[in-house]
């Protein structure tokens, strides 16, 4: 148990120290987070609702079947 905890702590420390020592990486992370926020909080929520979302498998089959027979 203590070996596992130590390994986990070492991994956490590895990432913590890695992120702390970043220079250019901070700017890049900012860009990544900004981009993901625009993609998931703006584009996905307001512009890209999947057309078939919320339908059951049967309803999806019927909806696409109807579309293909317009």
């Amino acid at each position: 148990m203590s070996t596992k905890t130590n390994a986990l702590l070492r991994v956490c420390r590895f990432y913590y120290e890695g992120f702390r020592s970043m220079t250019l990486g901070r700017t890049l992370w900012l860009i990544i987070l900004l981009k993901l926020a625009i993609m998931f909080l703006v584009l996905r929520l307001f512009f890209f609702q999947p057309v078939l979302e919320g339908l059951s498998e049967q309803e999806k089959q019927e909806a696409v079947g109807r579309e293909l027979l317009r």
Partner: protein
Amino acid sequence: MMIQPYLIDVALVDWSRAQFALTACYHWLFVPLTLGLAVVMGVMETLYVIRKDDFWKRTAQFWMRLFGINFAIGVATGIILEFEFGTNWSNYSWLVGDIFGAPLAIEGIVAFFMEATFIAVMFFGWNKVSRRFHLASTWLTGIGATLSAWWILVANSWMQHPVGMVFNPETVRHEMVDFWAVAFQGVAVTKFFHTVMSGWMTGAVFAVGVSCWYLLQGRHKRMALASIRVACAIGLFATLAVIYTGDRSGIEIARHQPMKLAAAEGLRQGGEGAAFSIVPGVEVPKLLSFLATHNPEGFVPGINDLLNGYSHHGETHLSATEKMERGRQAVEAFGRLRANLKTDPEAAAEARRQFDKNVAYFGYGYITHPDELVPNIPIVYWSFRVMVGAGMALLLVLILVLWHERRGRLERQRWLLHLGVWSILLVYAAGQAGWIVAEVGRQPWAIQDMLPVGAAVSQLETASVQTTFVIFALLFTALLAAEIRIMCRAIHQGPEEKGE
């Protein structure tokens, strides 16, 4: 039974296609550099581990920093394509769910676990993990990105040549019956190596271009010359591999997408011993036949042959009108099957028989005029020439740069150094043109012969697609501007120098 022509909103289809093309083109600015720089930095670090010379460590770290910038700004740009599948191409997404589900799920898992794990070790692990473990992490980061590309390209290849599946009209889905046929069909294997090698070319030419810039500036000479040696070797290998896989790709296209080949050549009337068009009015006799069939007298059908139908070696190829008629029968049977599925099993069974008879032409049932089966010839024709011309020019540049470097006189060839820098634009032009040939050339098909884009698209308001097109154009342009700015700053700053 009279069948009404399928109603297609052309503006909606065009805007949806334009939006997808815009997203894919921008996405493809980032991906090839990731694939290529992964190899460049991997080789540099391997040299460091073998030679135990800190110079190679600093060189590897410099290219790694540029890799990191490109990776960070490009990461997740592909997710937008998946948004578009669900929203703009919902019919298509449902139809291909079984085929795309497995490759894209594997891609997601592989990409997440391999790249996310090893990229952290690569950037944070210097002096914290052993040299060999760090080196393995660097290579595994590149391998993770390459495996990601594999599954995406498997999915793309399936659209170009759908195999290993059956279309089930009851579930309205293509259902996978042979995973291995989907994953390892010739089109997928060829496309994977062609695409990944073009990525290696991009990384190599980028490294050569940046190094040439340093030589023009008189800075970081040792690193620049060493990088040029490594990058030229990678670039030459990759260019030759691209030429070889391009040849294989020509054979596959001639076999499975003859209209794309005819459009890429602007070949109206085909025949045996077909000439290859260098540019309009300049032709090489028999070369097209050789490239398409590996036989200088081989038969290559032209656009008119494909539209009007033709016979060759006793094999009859149907005209577009005949295919459209059979396609309409398939669509009509599909409608009858679905209408009778729950109420009249006998009528449904009869409809199923009719459907199965003509299912190979199902997509033609949505085509209203044979001309719709011809892709935009000028775009495909000229894109093909840009791709091949730029590729050949890059091969020449790499040979010249390496030749002069080996003789120790590269720094004096300032014209060549300038050419090396501008080659960065050329390699991107080649890559983009290649995808234009592949994707515009297969129009009108979202899935070859099975589903045209007009039937694949979701019925949305055209204005909403236009709005998101503009949003994407702005977002991606901002990301590209950020990439160029940060990249230029990092290049200007240069590698860490110690005692050079």
